[in-house]
């Protein structure tokens, strides 16, 4: 009995160390420092000022609103783009090919976000691949400005997050019995009805967990908005970055980091409530 206890502690200690040292303590420290404010006399006091400045200066909450709306839209877009792919890979293609296709989908992750973003820059820049090709074909005379716009930022964010939607949706679709689709079609349902009444409701837990992951990845991403979005991108993480590294106001940065965490959690909670999904089911 004692021996079993020892092995039990040997296994639990790394887990606890991980959770406490790397997750709980840093966040508690961040949380505490977010209330520290240097008053006019140069004395550090406890105050809500760091949080209040978020609401007082409209640029901050407008940026946040913009970040949130873009993140939600891109998450929805990721679902729209990947759902047919996930359906095709699980229900249409035979199993031995589908695992090969999933490997193909993984390639951008292996290469890394930064490299894929530079790849997009090559494609999207004013005299990049796409513009040169269109000019060569004679469709346009002057290059279309795509890089350093919201368009290129959306493409970059979508590209790096799609996989995190596809995998959970595929595993949810995998458990869908083909005979349900056949039964629906036998009862007179069109393809659209089958998709909306049978396939999507069945895949809902997978869609929700994919949605949460994609949303979190996008709202917390810094690289794609910063590089592909250019100067005008106005992504909330960039403001946090600025507080920490440009203006060296760590407590202000901590407060904004917490606001991001809380507001994005609130959005996820709201969407889960709205769609009637339970976090336990989504998480599994």
């Amino acid at each position, binding site marked *: 009995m004692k021996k079993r206890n020892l092995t039990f502690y040997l296994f639990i200690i790394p887990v606890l160390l991980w959770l406490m040292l790397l997750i709980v303590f840093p966040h508690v420290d961040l949380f505490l420092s977010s209330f520290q404010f240097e008053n006019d006399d140069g004395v550090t006091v406890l105050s809500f000022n760091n949080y209040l400045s978020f609401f007082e200066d409209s640029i901050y909450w407008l940026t946040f609103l913009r970040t949130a709306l873009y993140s939600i839209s891109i998450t929805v877009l990721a679902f729209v783009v990947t759902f047919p792919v996930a359906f095709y890979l699980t229900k249409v293609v035979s199993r031995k090919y589908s695992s090969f296709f999933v490997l193909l989908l993984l390639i951008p992750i292996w290469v890394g976000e930064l490299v894929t973003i530079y790849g997009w820059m090559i494609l999207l820049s004013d005299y990049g691949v796409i513009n040169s090709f269109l000019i060569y074909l004679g469709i346009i005379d002057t290059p279309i400005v795509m890089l350093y716009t919201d368009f290129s930022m959306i493409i970059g964010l979508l590209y790096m997050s799609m996989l995190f939607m596809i995998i959970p949706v595929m595993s949810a679709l995998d458990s869908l*019995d083909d*005979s*349900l689709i*056949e*039964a*629906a*079609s*036998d*009862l*007179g*349902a*069109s393809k659209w*009805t089958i998709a909306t*009444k*049978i396939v999507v*409701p*069945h895949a809902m837990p997978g869609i929700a967990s994919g949605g949460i992951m994609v949303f979190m990845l996008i709202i917390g991403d810094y690289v794609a908005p910063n590089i592909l979005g250019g100067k005008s991108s106005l992504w909330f993480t960039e403001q946090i970055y600025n507080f920490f590294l440009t203006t060296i106001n760590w407590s202000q940065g901590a407060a904004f980091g917490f606001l991001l965490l809380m507001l994005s959690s609130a959005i996820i909670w709201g969407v889960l409530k709205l769609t009637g999904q339970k976090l336990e089911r989504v998480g599994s």
Partner: protein
Amino acid sequence: MDHILEVKDLSKYFVGFTAVQSIDFFVEEGGFFSILGPSGCGKTTLLRMISGFEEESEGDIIIRGESMKGIPPEKRPVNIVFQNLALFPMMNVEENVAFGLKRQKISKTEIVTRVKEMLDRVGLNGFEKKNVTELSGGQRQRVAIARSLVLKPSILLLDEPLGALDRKLREHMKIELKLLQKEIGTTFIYITHDQSEALVMSDKVAVMNKGRFEQIDTPKNLYKNPKTSFVAGFVGESNPFEITSYENGVLTTSHGWKLTKPNLDYTPLKLFIRPEAFILNPTEDLEGIDVVEMKVKTILFDGANTKISAIITQSNDEVLISLPQNAQFEDLKEGDMVKVGIHQDDLKCYKD
């Protein structure tokens, strides 16, 4: 009666094998037609072709005089009850039954009344709001049938729907299905590998083997007069024998048992005898009977289905004989010698 379904020279080839080969049959309006066959005989492929999920390689399917060529499943006047029922787990009983009606241009009030009517008919009123996952096997069965029947199909196809139920419930559902079919009068085409299901419920049974129909007949004829050796062996229990010679009206089995069977115009190779065809202790004055002595090996007690396994002393052939559960043979025990008679008409001989 009209033919609601006509299948003409229907074949289905897959890469490397033939699932269904030149099948011809028709089903009468309001009939209960079963297709009986071992697994892998092509019966499910045949059903899927009728419902439109599988395209025929050759031949034609005609429902109410209309060819179904190129018509997708959702446009065919047939509905199917799947083997695993395929109820929609994301909907309750009422929504499941209403699913098909909602796909048509029918007013909401009519949908509600028709669903209610259907649920009443299958004995599920009060279950409207229940989730299908909360139902018992028999209730799920009824939801699946109601979901199809509410659309008033010309033909209801059933793909071994009783397979997943336990034995007792299966026996019960057999009778219930037959009564339901009589009551509504919809044509049923029922697929099964369970001969008892097919025999009990059907007006006509087609026995299928290796992609072909061996015989289409009434259950009684199928049992009494099997046309092929496959049917004789597959439908009901039988004692099979190999025949090595046929001379002057006498059959000889591979073990040397001699039986009288006059007037065959072919040389039989196979012989089947039903367990109940053996007459224990026959009276001397019966005509057309061969009497043989046997030694009781074991008694296989199974209530009304009790049989004895006996060895024919003449040839060492082992046979199963039905043992009536009455006072006459109560004292029979292992090792006893019994006289057994077999009537010539009960010897079913086949060329292959």
